[in-house]
């Protein structure tokens, strides 16, 4: 492999890595949003309990949301852990790319001095082969992030849907002895948080697709 080819691979790996780190930064923003949803649904649950029999159906809906929220935190941790694996592999790739460069230079010097180049050449060849495989391994590691991202997106959709049901239910129970305006505000806040979550997961998915196309490209 020529040095400029090697540099291009090094740059491609850095570009992929930068994109993966952007997913890490973005996915972390999901945590406070998920906490907000959790808090709203908790408040809504208390309010529905206060409303007694009239708030019973609302209580069931908010309970559903409450159960969904902690799962988001687990999925975010899963994404972070997978990104950590990618970071480890990337650091390894970059170090090996440097080693390969050093062995190439060693080979040149040994050749110039008319000495045996076998060991340096073998090591350089092995590193080159590993480098060829590195994009496939990276792509595989990146694809492993997808299920957790998808799960978060699904959860945001489910929460949004329950939020809509909550609004319908509140509208139906308007005459009942409970603060329907406060409920409506909570449901709206919940919906807007879900929209934010979906936007972030969509952004992450788009960046992931770009990173995968870079890994499959060279």
């Amino acid at each position: 492999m020529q040095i400029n080819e090697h540099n291009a691979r090094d740059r491609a790996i850095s570009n992929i890595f930068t994109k993966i780190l952007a997913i890490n930064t973005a996915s972390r923003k999901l945590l406070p949003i998920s906490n907000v949803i959790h808090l709203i649904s908790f408040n809504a649950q208390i309010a529905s309990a206060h409303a007694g029999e009239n708030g019973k159906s609302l209580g069931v809906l908010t309970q559903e949301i409450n159960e969904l929220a902690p799962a988001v935190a687990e999925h975010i941790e899963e994404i972070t852990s997978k990104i950590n694996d990618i970071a480890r592999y990337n650091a390894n790739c970059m170090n090996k790319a440097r080693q390969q460069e050093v062995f190439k230079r060693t080979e040149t010097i040994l050749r110039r001095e008319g000495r045996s180049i076998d060991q340096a050449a073998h090591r350089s060849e092995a590193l080159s082969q590993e480098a060829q495989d590195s994009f496939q391994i990276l792509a595989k590691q990146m694809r492993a992030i997808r299920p957790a991202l998808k799960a978060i997106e699904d959860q945001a959709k489910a929460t949004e849907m329950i939020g809509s049901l909550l609004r319908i239910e509140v509208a139906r129970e308007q005459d009942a002895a409970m603060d329907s305006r406060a409920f409506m505000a909570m449901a709206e806040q919940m919906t807007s948080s879900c929209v934010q979550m979906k936007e972030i997961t969509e952004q992450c998915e788009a960046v992931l697709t770009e990173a995968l196309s870079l890994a499959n490209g060279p």
Partner: protein
Amino acid sequence: MKAHKLTENHNHEWIVLGRDPDKPDYVIDTNEYLIISDGNALLMDPGGTEIFPEVVTAVTQHTPIESIKVIFGSHQDPDILSSLSLWLSLCPEAKVYVPWTWPSFITHFGCNMEQIISVPDEGATIELSRSCRLEVVPANYLHASGNIHLYDPDTKVYFSGDVGAALLPGNAAGMFVEDFASHIQYMEGFHKRWMPSNRARDHWLARVRRMDIKMLCPQHGAIFKDEQVHQFFDWFASLELGSAIADYQQETDDGDSADNISKTA
């Protein structure tokens, strides 16, 4: 890797990263500090190659990788900067501040000389953003012959490199010193051996005692807060540094040991 927000002042925050439970035992535990201000980030002593994956993952949970504009290296040791070339491959625009004694040594880690800014012996200032101006404080011979610290006059947080460092037992999880007296056992040996010069220590103490410091943040071990900062200064002032020379002298004063040394030589 644990992350802890040390202080937050408007849009200016300090975060410490460390105590990675998955870190292999053969690698010394280090603290990495991050300052984020107006979307720009400064990373202090980013650490060795071995812990780079964990540090980069933890950093990017707080700020995008492209926001890192400054990397600060207190000195040239591998646990401080051997990951530098990896960082610079991701942050090609970042500037690296190191003591003037080290650029031609640090480039052995495989990084670009153009990104390095040499800090003179008298120190410097770093403007991370319009609202964040940091003071680079000289701490030469503590322990490296060229050594710098970083002070944030806004938050009163002081990054002290190896000064205040402690080699904590493996199960120590806390980021802060809980009891100063019981913490001494973890830092005494380190300071006596790694810090070579009483004169350099006194010079540094005379300077930092005049500064308003609320938090003293070493690169290894736990962080000192409020009163503990002054307890540390007093304790450090009383220490006899350069223990290896003292031990050696004692041995050479003894005839048998001197013979053994010359035979070995």
